[in-house]
Every structure is written in C-alpha cells, then in structure tokens.
C-alpha cells in the first residue's frame, strides 16, 4: 500500500497541461479540416435532398410564413401571401444560408421554393 502511494506520487501527471495539449491538437485538426474544405469546391457537392431540406427550413423560419404551408413547390407571393420585398428578403436569406451571391437578374426570377431549390442545386459554389 505504502509503496503504491509512493509510486503514484512519482508518476503524477500534470492533468491541466495534458488537457490543454489535447484541446490544442483538436483545434489544429479543426482548422486543418476547414482548410481542406476551403480548397475543395467540387468533391462535396450538395445532394438535392439536402438543398431541399435547407431551403425549406430557411423559408419556414421566415417570420411571416406559416411553417405548415411550406412544401417543395410553393410560390412565395401567390401561395404564402408574401409581397415582393419579402421575396427579396427570402432570396437574401438563402444566399446567406448557402454562402452564395446571386446576381440581381437571377434573384428576380426566384419566386418559388421549386426555383430556389433548382437554382441552388445547380450552383457549383453552393455550400
């Protein structure tokens, strides 16, 4: 018993620095992953299902929209009762969600979830 205690006292490991080192290496891994992700543009293309799911969740979280009425094929102004400014707002929110910049001419055409899903799915930089 006494010997065990003596040995234990000698091989005490500084827990704090270990934990910190662990954290640091994890951070490094994370940033490495981000770097790889940043350099790749085509290998991890979004699937249609993922695009659809994220588009719908953006539209559903829009304050004036009743989430239960949102389907993959609704017209923003005719079906959801939104106006043209809301339409622009939704397209801007989609830009943020998928880290895109949609030119004005294209953005004006996107007036339904169907067109939004199609546009984003076919966009090479959507992430």
């Amino acid at each position, binding site marked *: 018993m006494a010997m065990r205690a003596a040995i234990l006292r000698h091989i005490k490991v500084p827990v704090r620095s270990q934990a910190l080192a662990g954290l640091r290496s994890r951070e490094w891994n994370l940033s490495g992953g981000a770097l790889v992700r940043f350099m790749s543009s085509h290998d991890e293309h979004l699937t249609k299902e993922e695009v659809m799911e994220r588009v719908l969740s953006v539209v559903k979280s829009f304050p004036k929209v009743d989430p239960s009425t949102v389907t993959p094929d609704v017209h923003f102004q005719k079906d959801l009762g939104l106006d043209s*400014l809301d339409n622009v707002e939704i397209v801007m929110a989609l830009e943020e969600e998928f880290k895109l910049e949609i030119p*004005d001419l294209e*953005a004006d055409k996107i007036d339904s979830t169907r067109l939004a899903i199609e546009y984003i799915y076919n966009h090479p930089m959507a992430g």
Partner: protein
Amino acid sequence: MASAAAKAPSRSEVFSLFRSLLRTARDFSDYNMREYMKRRTIDAFRSNGGLSDPQSVSAAYADGKLQLEVAKRQAIVYSLYAPKVKSVMELKRLKSSFLFME
C-alpha cells in the same frame, strides 16, 4: 441633382437599392449593427411602399442612395474597431460545447 430628383426610379432600381442595402448590412463586423441595419432597411422600404407620387418616390430613392453610401463608409470604420468577442447571439453552434464544459 435636379435631374435625379425629376426622374422616378424603376422597379428594378428600387429592388437593387434594397438588395445593396441588405448586402452592406452583412459587412458590419458588429452583430448589433448588422441586425440594426437589416431591420432599418426593411422598415424603411415597407413604410415607403405606399408612395405613389413620383416626386416623393424619387426623393425617397435619393435618400436611400445617400444612406447606402453612409453605411458603406460606416462598415469600413466599424471594421477598424471590430469587437474582440462575438455577441452571444452569434454562438448558436457553440451552445452544446458550453454546456459540456460546465
């Protein structure tokens, strides 16, 4: 200035200004400024939505243009004094790891 005030902006010009203002709002480094400018832009366009008289439409448009220039400058100034920590409102994804640490 006189010619700009005389001609009412087209629909697409108005939307373009609306988009530019919302895009500039994203450029602020400070969460509160970002959200304020977004709110302010949307509220202003909504409250001016009923304007029909060309004179007041073009006046509102010209004012929006000026505000856009101000906002662009301010986004740069704010970036020089960016907050060192993020607002707690921006930490949605970190919430679970915070709970874990406790």
